[in-house]
């Protein structure tokens, strides 16, 4: 296994690649779920996802509404990809904006837990490398 890659910078320039957060946010958490290069120990080129699309969208909306009552945040944006997703690309991207980081991290973590329990989306196939 390669050693972890660590990069730390201090800059006096705008930080590239950072989305502008909605007004009122002091924290903006982005999570990307990436397709790994191995599935059950075997090297793969991609994963294929399928969804019960209308229910998956509703269920994600229900989960977000429920979690917002526990972790008040300013904004939540979820994009889940379906079809063939190559290794290294994102299957899901989650953006959470909040006044403070604690509720943003809490909502993001709880959302991903619930997604993996309740949202009708499936990895239907691993495509070998």
């Amino acid at each position, binding site marked *: 296994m390669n050693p972890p890659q660590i990069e730390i910078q201090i800059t006096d320039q705008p930080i590239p690649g950072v989305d502008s957060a909605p007004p009122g946010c002091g924290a903006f958490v982005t999570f990307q*779920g990436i397709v790994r290069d191995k599935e059950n120990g075997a090297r793969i080129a991609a994963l294929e996802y399928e969804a019960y699309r209308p229910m*998956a969208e*509703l269920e994600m909306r229900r989960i977000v509404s429920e979690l917002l009552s526990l972790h008040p945040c300013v904004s939540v944006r979820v994009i889940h990809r379906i079809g063939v997703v190559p290794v290294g690309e994102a299957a899901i991207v989650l953006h959470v904006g909040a006044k403070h980081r604690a509720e943003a991290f809490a909502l993001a973590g709880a959302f991903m837990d619930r997604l993996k329990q309740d949202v*009708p*989306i499936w990895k239907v196939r691993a495509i070998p490398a």
Partner: protein
Amino acid sequence: MQVLFFFHLPAVTGCAEASIDAGPGLSADAVWTTLETRFPGIIQYRAGTRLARNREYVGADAVFHDGDEVALIPPVSGG
């Protein structure tokens, strides 16, 4: 009512959806019994599969009617 199958279930039933006559209303158990009669292969998946009615999970006490969109939801694996 229409019953939708996802993930591995279409390979078991041979179809992505099926019509069921709900008559005066069917309990969740009756929905399963009807499906198991028509598609015996799904019996082994019943324990791990949840029912949804009109795009929302329902429990064992749910009653299903004609016009409902029912879905069998196998364990999910998104993200």
